[in-house]
């Protein structure tokens, strides 16, 4: 019996001493953290994707509270949570939030297996970074998509995947949070964050080839040759041609699609527009046959 009593007392004493030490330490070494940071952190999605530009959601919460104290939340946007989350955070901090446009990742290359002929076979490490370091790739276009999927590996949301028929990555605009990981992963800067657009519609030049016209045409059937027709056609001055490549500024584009019609190479792509109405059946021919 004695032993049990001694054991209980000894262990009890150790426990008591440990508790006192821990209590003292938690008081002496306590770090004061603004309780709002934890509250804001609760509202954020918790994906730690870095899309806001801060190290994780806790970093963003910290920046938001600092911003609130400084008087403005401008420039702070959580792409995953979107306007809804930012609205809740603004309410909590008692601030107004600037409205910012939703963005989406756009792959600006249409050099599919059909359009771009292979001139070599790559037999090395199958990542875009390695292939880019080796040379132009398996085709004659030194600017186009290599199709090895560095962007797919970088995406934490499963929003981008390589289409096995075309060999080019495709973005699922429901899942894309515009965090920008794929943009950084692409060694050729083919992917760009552009405005999602009303009803998810957008117009962009699906080419980043800066070679002169003849070389670009030889490499790919739908490459931009820098002819400038689109630049002349655009009523809003949204298109600039530089280094044999046209670029549509997504802030200025009004989705009129005049450029799509005049491009001789079909290099400009309009996404999520309704299909054009079929041409009316020619009445004269019908009458002739009768």
């Amino acid at each position: 019996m004695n032993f049990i009593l001694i054991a209980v007392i000894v262990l009890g004493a150790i426990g008591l001493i440990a508790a006192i030490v821990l209590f003292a330490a938690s008081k002496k070494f306590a770090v004061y953290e603004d309780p709002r940071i934890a509250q804001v952190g609760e509202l954020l999605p918790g994906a730690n994707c870095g899309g806001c530009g801060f190290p994780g959601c806790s970093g963003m919460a910290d920046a938001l509270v600092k911003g609130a104290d400084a008087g403005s939340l401008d420039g702070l946007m959580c792409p995953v949570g979107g306007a809804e989350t930012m609205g809740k955070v603004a309410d909590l901090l008692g601030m107004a939030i600037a409205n910012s446009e939703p963005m989406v990742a756009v792959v600006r290359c249409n050099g599919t297996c059909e359009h771009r002929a292979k001139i070599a076979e790559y037999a090395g490490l199958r990542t875009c970074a390695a292939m880019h370091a080796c040379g132009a790739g398996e085709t004659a276009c030194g600017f186009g998509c290599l199709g090895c999927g560095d962007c797919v590996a970088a995406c934490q949301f499963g929003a981008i995947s390589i289409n096995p028929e075309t060999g080019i990555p495709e973005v699922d605009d429901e899942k894309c949070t515009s965090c920008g990981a794929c943009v950084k992963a692409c060694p050729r800067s083919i992917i760009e964050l552009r405005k999602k657009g009303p009803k998810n519609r957008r117009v962009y030049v699906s080419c980043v080839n800066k070679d002169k016209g003849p070389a670009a045409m030889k490499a790919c059937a739908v490459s931009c040759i820098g002819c400038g027709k689109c630049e002349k056609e655009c009523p809003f001055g949204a298109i600039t041609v530089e280094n044999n490549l046209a670029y549509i500024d997504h802030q200025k584009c009004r989705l009129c699609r005049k450029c799509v019609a005049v491009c001789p190479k079909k290099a400009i792509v309009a996404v999520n527009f309704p299909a054009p109405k079929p041409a009316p059946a020619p009445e004269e021919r019908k009458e002739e046959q009768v």
Partner: protein
Amino acid sequence: MKIKTFSMGGIHPAENKLTHEVPTIVAELPKQAIFPLGQHIGAPAKPVVQKGDKVKVGTMIAEAGGFVSAPIFSSVSGTVFKIDTAIDATGYRKPVIIINVEGDEWEESIDRSNKLEEVAAHPELTPELIVERIKNAGVVGMGGACFPTFIKLTPPPTAKAECVIINAVECEPYITADYRLMMEHADEILVGLELLMMGAKVTKGYIGIETNKPAAIELLSEKCAKKFNGTKYLVEVVPLKQRYPQGGEKQLVDAVIQRQVPAPPAIPVNVGAIVQNVGTAFAVYEAVMKNKPLFERYTTVTGKKLANPGNFQVRMGTPMINLIDACGGMPEGDNKLLAGGPMMGKALTSVEVPICKGTNSVTIISDEEARRKEPQPCIRCAKCVGVCPMGLEPYLLAKLSEVKNWERAESEDITSCIECGSCHYTCPAHRPLLDNIRLGKATVMGIIRSRAAKK
């Protein structure tokens, strides 16, 4: 006497020196010569001709684009066709000057005679004049790296040059261009060495040659003794054990003068050695003594399935397909076309790529050798650690690059890697070690540069 070699690592790939005893022939002039503007380390050259200009052999067609740069001279006579882009050895389209070849008219200032010019016969030569002529002739490292030679001869104030080491090692399999150059132009090479020693203001010189070239060792030793014995120059021919990568400049300095160059940013001149390829020494002789700028070189065209592999004296700008056709044409089936040797050469996507200042060989690898086997998991055999000539741990560096752990990669000295490929060659699991390490090294060097720029 024990044959000298470098301190650690190294491999013994199959030699395959198919063209060792094939005498050099002068390649035919092409119909069109293509001159990339970026044939050297540093800023690309800037064109000084335009479409329609008439040029002669030896006319400057592009001037140096900055301090670390070199001018480019036409190797043919004819009319400038256009200034355009074309695929070069980097695999990308780069700015080039294309010249349609007409006849073979040379600039009058070039001395085309075969007379051997000795330094003693030219009292006007001073170290400064030698360096100036080398610079104006556009001479760059001919071993493949293409670093402007005149800069190497004027080391920074923190380093003092003590000797010139001629790299005649040619440790890569297949390549025999340097060997043929030594056998056919030994006298000129030795005058070139003397000019380099004068330009660098040193009196000690070494010529490193691997033991698989006994005839060259004997020939050069004999001529060296005759030329330099009794003069103020101490020149020694150093036979080196046949082992890859003996030709790497750090390994060469280690083997010849037993001094190890520390990790980057240190360079060989920090331990007193200026290393120059034997082809560069020859180009220096021609530039200083014959007033001939750099526009032609010795190139080996070889491969197991080539009908007649050979060594060529070729004008730069000649598309490779011309030389390959002279050797019997591209072999049937799938091939790898390499600018350089199998260990460090660059695989090309086009047969029209021209011969440039650093193209010491065109190697064609065929069939199974052209493809890689499927990689298997690392079995931790440590063979890569055993063969690394820089004392690194390739399995670790490759893994760190794969998982993008740049801080640890930097602390594990990834920037010391000389990209020789010994680790990749040895790995029993066929893992793409050098692919990963190369990418990691480039990223870490970018991080170091941006860190230095911020300061």
